[in-house]
């Protein structure tokens, strides 16, 4: 088998729930986790005689997302009915877009190893209504909750440009960042705001010949972990299957799988691709949408610097590591706070550390975002400057940060209140150093003896001085004085 090589080919179908206030074709509020069938009206449950009316915001959000994904926005787009019978679909057709989607031909750059990016092409993104939810916990009966019916969804279809589970995961995370940055989706995976369906197969080269394995579609994945693992699992399974059976792709042998999160394996749902005939035709109850340059320009003006650009700029301009830049740009509000604090004069690395370490911990405890802790950029910059100028210690800065969150007070005021200002009065410090030297002959001997133990003893002396000063002496100055007293070779 040494002559066998393979390439992983993955394309994605992604559903992103848009965060409009109301549903796509009626005035019902979008609500997650509400009592079943309490956010419904005659329109979204498709009662006889009702008609849909388009939610303009849903369209604008979808255009904004498509622009962020570098798609073309055609001037004319229309709605189509997609017919299939299913209990969670009240009209037995879904209003979607077929041959003239609201956007097409885009791409998304995803971060890969070593600060590099890879471009994944997007075939199209279109707008459609979500269906309801079936539950099967009532014995002989199934229950249908139609609260979700009519939720606006953006369906994004990529080219099969992805070549590993890691890349698939990277795309998902990047897409989540993007839609959150531009404010069109909460993109909360656990709430099903983003659902992924990878199509996976392998191009296997064996004895100089290329074989394509049958495509597997994995349905409805809504965690990054499941997404990555299911793709990896399919790669292994298809490889095994090919070695065993030599099966290759043919018309109609695409299979549909689910993901068993407990046993970490894909589970076959449909052996053969059913001959789906959705009988698409133009939705006669809705008028087509024509978008003119003014409208498009207006929507475009709502775009912001996208996460990957921001991340790169933080690396280039602020000299953050790619890792730090990635962490700080995970959420736009944090990235903006960081950016503003740097512009207000704080050192980038210092602010980044404060935000990601203390801020991250506090936000996690409070269950909010770092920006929601309520710190302003000015105070943050001031705090960072105080550390940089040795007015306070790095440890003290963390305490002050926490206090700032609690009280919204000025960092300097807190530092004074809590006696955290470091003393840089060298006379005062020298007196303390002398006291410590007099009291610790053993350590002094070790220092003067030089060698291995000397460094440790120096540290001990420094610690003693710090203790004496109740932590308020500037350790840099203590070091300088100690070094003067015991010159090292």
């Amino acid at each position, binding site marked *: 088998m040494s002559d066998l090589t393979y390439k992983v080919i993955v394309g994605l179908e992604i559903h992103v729930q848009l965060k409009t206030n109301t549903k796509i074709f009626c005035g019902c509020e979008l609500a997650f986790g509400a009592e079943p069938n309490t956010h419904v009206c*005659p*329109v979204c*449950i*498709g*009662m*006889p*005689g*009702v*008609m*849909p*009316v*388009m939610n303009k915001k849903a369209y604008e959000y979808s255009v904004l997302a498509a622009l962020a994904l570098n798609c073309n926005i055609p001037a004319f787009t229309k709605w189509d*009915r997609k*017919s299939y*019978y299913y*209990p969670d679909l*009240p*009209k*037995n*057709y879904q209003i979607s877009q077929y041959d003239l989607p609201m956007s097409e031909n885009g791409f998304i750059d995803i971060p890969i190893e070593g600060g590099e990016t890879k471009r994944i092409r997007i075939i199209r993104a279109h707008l459609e209504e979500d269906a309801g939810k079936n539950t099967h916990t009532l014995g002989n009966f199934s229950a249908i909750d139609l609260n979700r019916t009519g939720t606006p969804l953006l369906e994004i279809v990529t080219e099969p440009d992805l070549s590993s589970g890691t890349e698939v995961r990277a795309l998902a995370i990047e897409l989540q960042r993007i839609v959150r940055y531009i404010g069109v989706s909460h993109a909360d995976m656990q709430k099903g705001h983003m659902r992924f369906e990878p199509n996976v197969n392998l191009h296997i080269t064996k004895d100089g010949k290329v074989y394509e394995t049958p495509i597997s579609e994995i349905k409805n994945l809504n965690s990054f972990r499941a997404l990555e693992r299911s793709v990896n699992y399919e790669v292994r399974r298809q490889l095994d299957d090919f070695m065993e059976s030599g099966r290759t792709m043919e018309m109609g042998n695409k299979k549909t799988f689910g993901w068993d999160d407990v046993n970490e394996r894909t589970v076959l749902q449909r052996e053969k691709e059913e001959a789906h*005939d959705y*009988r*698409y*035709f133009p939705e*006669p*109850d*809705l*008028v087509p949408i024509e978008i003119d340059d003014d409208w498009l320009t207006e929507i475009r003006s709502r775009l912001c610097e996208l996460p990957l650009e921001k991340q790169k700029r933080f690396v280039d301009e602020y000299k953050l590591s790619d890792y730090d830049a990635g962490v700080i740009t995970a959420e736009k509000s944090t990235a903006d706070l960081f950016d503003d604090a740097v512009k207000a004069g704080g050192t980038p690395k210092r602010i980044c550390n404060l935000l990601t370490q203390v801020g991250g911990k506090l936000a996690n405890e409070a269950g909010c975002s770092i920006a929601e802790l309520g710190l302003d950029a000015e105070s943050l910059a001031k705090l960072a400057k105080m550390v940089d100028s040795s007015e306070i210690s790095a440890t003290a800065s963390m305490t002050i940060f926490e206090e700032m969150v609690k009280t919204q007070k000025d960092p300097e005021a807190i530092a004074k209140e809590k006696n955290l200002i470091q003393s840089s009065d060298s006379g005062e410090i020298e007196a303390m150093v002398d006291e410590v030297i007099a009291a610790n002959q053993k350590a002094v001997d070790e220092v003067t003896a030089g060698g291995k133990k000397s460094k440790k003893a120096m540290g001990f002396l420094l610690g003693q001085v710090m203790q004496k000063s109740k932590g308020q002496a500037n350790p840099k100055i203590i070091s300088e004085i100690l070094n003067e007293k015991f010159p090292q070779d």
Partner: protein
Amino acid sequence: MLNELLNFTCKQLRDKIAGGSVKSVDATGAVLDQIEKLDPDIGAYISTCREQALETARSIDKKIANGEPVGALAGVPIAVKDNMCTSFGATTCASKILQNFKSPYDAYVIDKLTGADAVIVGKCNMDEFAMGSSTENSGIQQTANPWDITRVPGGSSGGSTAAVAARMCFGALGSDTGGSIRQPASFCGVVGLKPTYGRVSRFGLVAYGSSLDQIGPVTRDVADSALLLNVISGRDERDSTCVSKDIAGDCDYLAEIDKPVDGLRIGIVSEFNKGADADVQKAIVAAIDVYKQLGAEIIEIEMPHFEYAIAAYYVIATAEASSNLARYDGVHFGHRTSAPKDYVEVYSKSRAEGFGSEVKRRIMLGTFVLSSGYYDAYYLRALKVRNLIRGDFTNAFAKTDCIMMPVSPTTAFKKGEKTADPLQMYLADVYTIAANLAGIPGISIPCGFDASDLPIGLQILSDVFTEDKLLRIARMFEAKTDFHTKTPTVIA
């Protein structure tokens, strides 16, 4: 003896009620008595709402007694086709599948009628889901033509037109997808108007062919048609295809109804007439002569794509219907079969039991034409024909004010006469269908009688959003003739 109150038109009655000389409760009572007397033979109503109607009538009388302002249809008893959702009673679409359907909301037109202080007396029979031309496809009951109860009233709004003709209401609403207001109006000797597509909101009209359906008035004369159109037209935010005032204009159709159209140019296609029965041909020719005498210029026009209208219609309408009617599945809406053996049978048996054969035929036809591999050959081609027909009308209206032709090639036929051959029934829609495909308004007005004393209708078509002119043209004829004042045998 006919209660003389029943001879008033809507407009006359409204003015009398508003003026205090007639009580709405008396007019409503007269209508309800007439229904009680005649409807066992006619079968125009699927349901009536006696108590509610009388109560509404009394409250309007009270308003008037108190000197409060009242609406344009104050106290006038009106009937509506049973495919318009009402928050009272059932909305059946004359289908077994919806026999017990109670709408939680009112259709836009119902809101408009009640807003104008009309008294809704009941809901009229129709072909099931408005599919048919004789009302014989009703899954609930049969309706007779008031001029000869052995004959059909036409369809699909046959209940509405029979009710108006038999004085069982003062006016009614019907819906017209391929001629369903105009053809039964012609068979029943009343005035039926199909407004421009988008003139009247379809919100709450149970859909058949969504791109063709339009609600319109059925009345005894043209002025009433204008009055009802005044009430039911207008922009409705809930119907995206309902056109805004900037495009459709906003006018009082009644204000200038008696003003003749100067220099009227009438388009005709001579060969069209030849397809109709001799009596119909004669009546149409005579009607056009009336216009000639009024100084109209007759212009021969060409409608080269007219002959493809029926084919295009039965592709588009059935395609839309197959999708619109998918929700009646026993799971979401409508009749549910009693003992399904599995989940698929809930769907298949509920639908098999609930739908009548014509509805099934059209669902199958529509499903077929939308199927993968057939879409381009049928649906897409039908849309192209539709555009060509629109073009034919555009060209015609560039040199004419209106086009005149028969409504139907025949007068009312015998019950059962055509049921065995659905295709023959489809072909009878030849004159009415093109207006729906093009979205233009059309009206049917009484213009004569055949040898059996059955009414004949003259169809007048005009360009989109020119109902004001269309109604004035129709009124010019009505003012010179008395066909619309004749009463059917059943009430004589």
